[in-house]
């Protein structure tokens, strides 16, 4: 876990998903190349590479962007989340190949620095037809480079998960830039109804899923629990929580997971310190709350990762009365030992 910075848990499922992704990438490239050679045999190898890797990067970006909201809407999609980081880095490499070949093809013939040429060869920013769309692609590539180069537990640890996640939300800006790069670039030069249709469906899917997930989360955030006179919140009945599992509640706008185990109840902050995974969707394994995303573990009674690991999450005080569970909304500092509530 947090002791070193190795990529987490190379289990057989991770390897299997990696193989599936790698095979799919190869299959897509082969299919694209064969179809292009059949339909447009006059095209050059450089153009073929630019188009094959550009379209591959866009397809992968769409898949990456729908994984997050899909998992929030339906936990059954969680297994695909495990490999999102590998998929992200692979997508950056595909975009890099596309960008590098495009710069070589279009900007290395003159005596201007190719990178400078990307920004200065076309200054028609007022036109939609001739908009300098390559600038948009270049800026998106810079964002993707920043994200791919920080996609390692070293940066996650040193930046803190909250800042890391906040910075990685820049992928949404990259998505907007790439969509405009395609619409103001490729589509203006070669208008093709099917490809425009596919991109539009992709946009509706990505934005629709993100907005649906966001509003669902807001709805959960706004659920008000009845506060008792002594400051405790009545949350649920004990029998509603399954053994070695948790139920998640919103308390003071933060998610809290209440776990039931060995005749006891404990409550911890729902957000894993690793990548912000939902601890309450995990289960208790070997006496530890285990994050469903990457297997980070915490002791339910104090929110601390078992030694030698050092991660800590906030804890909450619970009370059981007449089969009902009550929680004190004020969180204790991370890693504070709290006596579990006896059932």
């Amino acid at each position: 876990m947090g002791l070193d910075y190795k990529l987490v848990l190379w289990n057989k499922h991770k390897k299997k998903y990696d193989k599936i992704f790698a095979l799919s990438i190869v299959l897509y490239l082969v299919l694209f190349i064969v179809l292009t050679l059949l339909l447009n045999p006059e095209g050059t190898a450089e153009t073929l590479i630019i188009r094959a890797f550009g379209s591959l990067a866009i397809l992968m970006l769409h898949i990456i962007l729908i994984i997050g909201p899909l998992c929030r809407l339906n936990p059954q999609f969680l297994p695909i989340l495990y490999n999102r980081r590998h998929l992200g880095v692979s997508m950056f490499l595909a975009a890099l190949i596309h960008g590098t070949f495009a710069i070589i093809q279009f900007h290395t013939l003159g005596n201007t620095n190719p990178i400078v040429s990307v920004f200065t060869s076309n200054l028609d920013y007022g036109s939609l037809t001739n908009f300098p769309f390559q600038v948009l692609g270049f800026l998106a590539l810079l964002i993707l480079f920043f994200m791919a180069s920080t996609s390692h537990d070293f940066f996650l640890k040193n930046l803190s998960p909250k800042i890391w996640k906040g910075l990685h939300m820049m992928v949404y800006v990259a998505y907007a830039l790439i969509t405009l790069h395609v619409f103001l670039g490729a589509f203006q030069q070669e208008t093709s109804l099917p490809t425009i249709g596919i991109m539009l469906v992709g946009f509706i899917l990505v934005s629709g899923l993100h907005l649906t997930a966001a509003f669902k989360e807001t709805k959960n955030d706004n659920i008000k629990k009845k506060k008792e006179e002594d400051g405790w919140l009545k949350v649920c009945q004990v029998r509603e929580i399954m053994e070695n599992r948790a139920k998640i509640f919103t308390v003071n706008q933060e998610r809290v997971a209440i776990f039931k185990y060995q005749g006891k109840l404990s409550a911890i902050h729902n957000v894993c310190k690793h990548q912000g995974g939902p601890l309450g969707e995990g289960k208790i394994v070997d006496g530890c709350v285990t994050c469903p995303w990457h297997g980070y573990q915490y002791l339910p009674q104090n929110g601390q990762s078992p030694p030698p690991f050092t991660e800590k999450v906030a804890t909450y005080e619970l009370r059981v009365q007449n089969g009902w569970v009550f929680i004190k909304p004020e969180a204790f500092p991370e890693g504070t030992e709290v006596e579990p509530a006896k059932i």
Partner: protein
Amino acid sequence: MDYRLRTRHKWMWMILTPTLAIFLFLSAINLDFFSSSENLYMAEVKGNVVEEIENAEMKVVLSNTSEQYLLNIWLKSPLRATSSVVYEINGKGEKGEVLGQLQGIGSYSFPSTGIIRGFIVMDEIKNQQILKLEF
């Protein structure tokens, strides 16, 4: 995600979705799906038509105005090289001055003060001649 990140995520998509939709709509209505681009092209030719050549890949019209000659190229299908440089043919029948660049399907208009005898399209990366056309 904690509460702040969830809020940031929601606002980002609430801003991105309509903004992108407007830009995509504007760029889509700007695309020419249905009108005949040949008619559009012909309307754009300025001056008197001097020469006109057409094949499956392109239509070339040489026109002149009181000030200059214009080489008008309507590219119907993509060339072998995506970015190809167009040269004027000089008096010796060889590659002369650069007139401009062809990038993809569309219409191009290259002005020249002198008479244009023909043009050569070059793939500059491979240093290969793609097309030579003399009027």
